[in-house]
């Protein structure tokens, strides 16, 4: 085992060197047993890899949980590896330094297992950059016994096909239990001695429910480019891979001795995970489908976790993480409990974005008793018709009622999130966004001077809708970039006289490539590699993204991006992700797609079960 020495001039010349130097409170350093000892009792060195900067990666809950979970075992040492920012990566290349772990500065290629968590498709090229800088062969086919196994997990892996050639194995679903089984399987394989092969470990791992070994499946295509078959190419390999979930979140492992970063990160506070999943069923939302069914933690467990973590971390702020936090059934009990316990210690509670329909003045006042956080509303679409299409069951009246409460409560504004390019969108829907903002302005003016803030400040942003796998819109074409650009300009024009509105938008070109990758197949692997070789990395960062490079690479590979992004699929089409089973059935998704096209809404899980299929897991909200 070797250690990467970081010369002073290197660290002194890069932005935020503390990203690379580790040593944080609660980070874990272990002693690696000698080779001779390991022959008797194998030891696993695991690198948790996050394909973005330290600040973003350290804000990821999966990393926080799995890092400590793995390190609970005496025969495993899990360390962290983040993508070095471009300045550092370039310097490392020119000085011939390999990518290293934060805890022991061990080169990436010396680890046994690398576990990447993928939160967005635009991180794909950064994964290749990390492997390459870490001296790990990019392709699974080129790796030998001397190389690590490269794994992936996270929401993006529900369609990992574009990256299928780079990952040895993929974990579908929540990692807590299945990762422990993979580790056990690895240690067993490592103990098998000289005769062991990579194939042997992958064969064994593929028997674990939730583990997908892409190279064990062969994909064939029809002449029109769509998929003909996806089949196992070895015996004893399952035809479909079902996601894994954890049921009893109160009993599930949750680390209370969490790492405290030395340099500021995006979510620099104590995290509480209130629940997993979401009952709402918004039709554009992949997380809302793949994390089903909803499972909650008890408020008493959360309060004691917060108190414990306050002591072990020294943080002075507690935040709540979940898909739609205000849907938590015991939110009031939880916030009361937290405020009562935390306020005497100068610890504040930061309230997350709240939904409009169950928005309450009481909750807002609670938040303001500590620090007045921002308010975030996501109506997503500008007209009732389009909100019905996407099943975002919010009315204009809800929004105005909530805004009135907010303005009277002393808030001077809110962030409003919308999407452009939703299926069936017309110019009226785009104009509806401006009308909503103007209705809020009118509301503000109608309030008596003493009952409203001095100024109204609305921050309105639009993101591009991207159809994702395992959503009702997986069959739907993505809107074209030119139309989106003109819709954006139109909206900007409509808002030019609304002085209290600040309009921000997301770049449609980036969304186009994200759309291609999201519903892409294995043929895109060479495109991703070519883009990486051409200089693509950190594609999710506006200033790093190179659209022309991507379009060139697609062209070179003879692939039409519109085939992936802009094509409407038929009910019969086999998707690149058809062998993955997230519980929610294709029949349900299709019926939701049909209801969407007819602008019919579907009630949320707690109102009425719509038989999505997630009941098959045997727990959660389905059985409450």
């Amino acid at each position: 085992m070797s250690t990467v020495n970081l010369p002073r001039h290197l660290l002194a010349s890069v932005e935020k060197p503390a990203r690379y130097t580790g040593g944080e409170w609660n980070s874990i350093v272990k002693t690696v047993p000698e080779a001779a000892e390991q022959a008797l009792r194998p030891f696993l060195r695991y690198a948790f890899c996050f394909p973005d900067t330290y600040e973003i990666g350290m804000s990821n809950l999966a990393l926080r949980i799995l890092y400590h979970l793995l390190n609970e075992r005496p025969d495993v040492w899990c360390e962290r590896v983040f993508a070095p920012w471009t300045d550092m990566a370039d310097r490392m290349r020119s000085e011939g330094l390999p990518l290293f772990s934060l805890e022991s500065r061990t080169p990436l290629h010396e680890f046994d297992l690398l576990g990447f968590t993928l939160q967005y498709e635009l991180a794909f090229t950064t994964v290749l950059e990390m492997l390459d800088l870490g001296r790990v062969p990019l392709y699974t086919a080129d790796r030998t016994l001397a190389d690590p196994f490269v794994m992936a997990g996270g929401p993006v892996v529900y369609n990992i096909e574009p990256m299928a050639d780079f990952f040895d194995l993929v974990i579908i679903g929540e990692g807590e239990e299945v990762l422990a089984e993979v580790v056990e399987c690895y240690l067993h394989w490592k103990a098998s001695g000289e005769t062991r092969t990579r194939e042997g470990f992958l064969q064994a791992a593929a028997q674990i429910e939730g583990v997908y070994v892409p190279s064990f499946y062969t994909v064939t295509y029809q002449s029109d480019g769509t998929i003909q078959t996806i089949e196992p190419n070895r015996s004893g390999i399952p035809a479909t891979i079902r996601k894994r979930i954890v049921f009893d979140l109160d009993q599930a492992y949750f680390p209370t001795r969490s790492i405290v970063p030395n340099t500021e990160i995006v979510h620099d506070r104590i995290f509480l995970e209130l629940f997993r999943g979401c009952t709402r069923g918004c039709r554009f939302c992949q997380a809302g489908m793949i994390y089903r069914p909803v499972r909650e933690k008890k408020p008493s467990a959360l309060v004691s976790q917060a108190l414990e973590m306050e002591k072990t971390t020294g943080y002075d702020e507690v935040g709540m993480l979940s898909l739609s936090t205000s849907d938590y059934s015991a939110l009031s009990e939880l916030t009361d409990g937290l405020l009562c316990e935390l306020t005497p210690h100068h610890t504040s509670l930061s309230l997350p974005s709240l939904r409009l329909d169950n928005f309450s003045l009481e909750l807002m006042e609670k938040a303001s008793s500590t620090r007045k956080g921002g308010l975030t509303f996501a109506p997503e679409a500008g007209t009732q018709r389009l909100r019905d299409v996407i099943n975002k069951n919010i009315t204009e009246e809800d929004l105005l009622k909530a805004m009135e409460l907010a303005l009277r409560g002393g808030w001077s504004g809110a962030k409003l999130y919308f999407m452009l390019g939703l299926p069936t969108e017309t110019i009226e829907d785009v104009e509806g966004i401006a009308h909503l903002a103007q209705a809020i302005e009118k509301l503000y003016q109608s309030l008596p001077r003493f009952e409203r803030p001095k100024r109204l400040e609305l921050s309105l942003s639009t993101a591009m809708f991207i159809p994702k796998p395992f959503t009702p819109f997986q069959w739907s074409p993505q809107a074209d970039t030119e139309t989106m650009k003109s819709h954006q300009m139109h909206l900007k024009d409509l808002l030019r006289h609304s002085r209290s509105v600040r309009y921000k938008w997301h770049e449609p070109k980036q969304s186009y490539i994200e759309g291609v990758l999201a519903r892409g197949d294995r043929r895109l692997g060479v495109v991703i590699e070519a883009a990486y070789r051409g200089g693509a990395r950190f594609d999710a960062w506006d200033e790093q993204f190179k659209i022309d490079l991507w379009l060139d690479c697609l062209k070179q590979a003879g692939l039409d991006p519109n085939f992936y992004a802009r094509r409407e699929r038929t009910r019969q089409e086999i998707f690149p992700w058809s062998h993955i089973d997230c519980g929610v059935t294709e029949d349900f998704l299709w019926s939701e797609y049909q209801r969407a096209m007819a602008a019919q809404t579907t009630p949320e899980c707690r109102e009425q079960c719509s038989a999505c299929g997630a009941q098959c897991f045997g727990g959660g909200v389905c059985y409450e």
Partner: protein
Amino acid sequence: MSETFIVRLRFSRQEPAIWLAHLDMMRTFERSIRRAGLPICWSQGYNPRPQMTFALPISVGLATAGDYLDMSLAEDLDPYEVMDRLNHSLPTGFAILDAIRVAPAKASLMSLVRAAEYRLETPGLAEAVARIANTQPLVVEKFSKGKMVEVDIRPLIEKIQLKGPDCLEMRVKAGSSANLRPDLFLKALETYGDLPAAAAADCAATRLALILDSASPASDSQ
């Protein structure tokens, strides 16, 4: 307002903590104090902060063997207990070396700083120092308040002592009115003493001590 008790701590920072920016270090100390469960006083106002003051900012990459930090406590704790509890709560690279009680004074800790001693280590230092021995003045460019200004650093240097061909110790003016940072001194060595840029970039710098106003009780050990 209730009575507050000030404890002055002398601390060191070494690898890897030397790579923290000053603001990061302040946050790190705040959290360490909370983990140690020390009864720190909080500032008044909209956004209360724990009350502590560093004698002098420490730039990124600089180690220290003896900087000072004052913290206000709501209880009269034994300074050594404060030191001990904090030493069990600080991340890798930080250590509290000494702690004393000081009387609440009108002058802030920052205003007491007079000079600082540094050790610099990099190949070719002694030769470069010899070359600037008679350079008068030593004008270097410095980024200050948003623009580049020229400063003569000669008057800021009190003493330079060579410890070998690649090592020196120096005493320079420090504090809010006149302050010389080691990077600026290295720039002068590069400009006037032909110190290779690579040697300057790789120079390890440690603040050995901060010299406080002699009227201050911190210079007496307890």
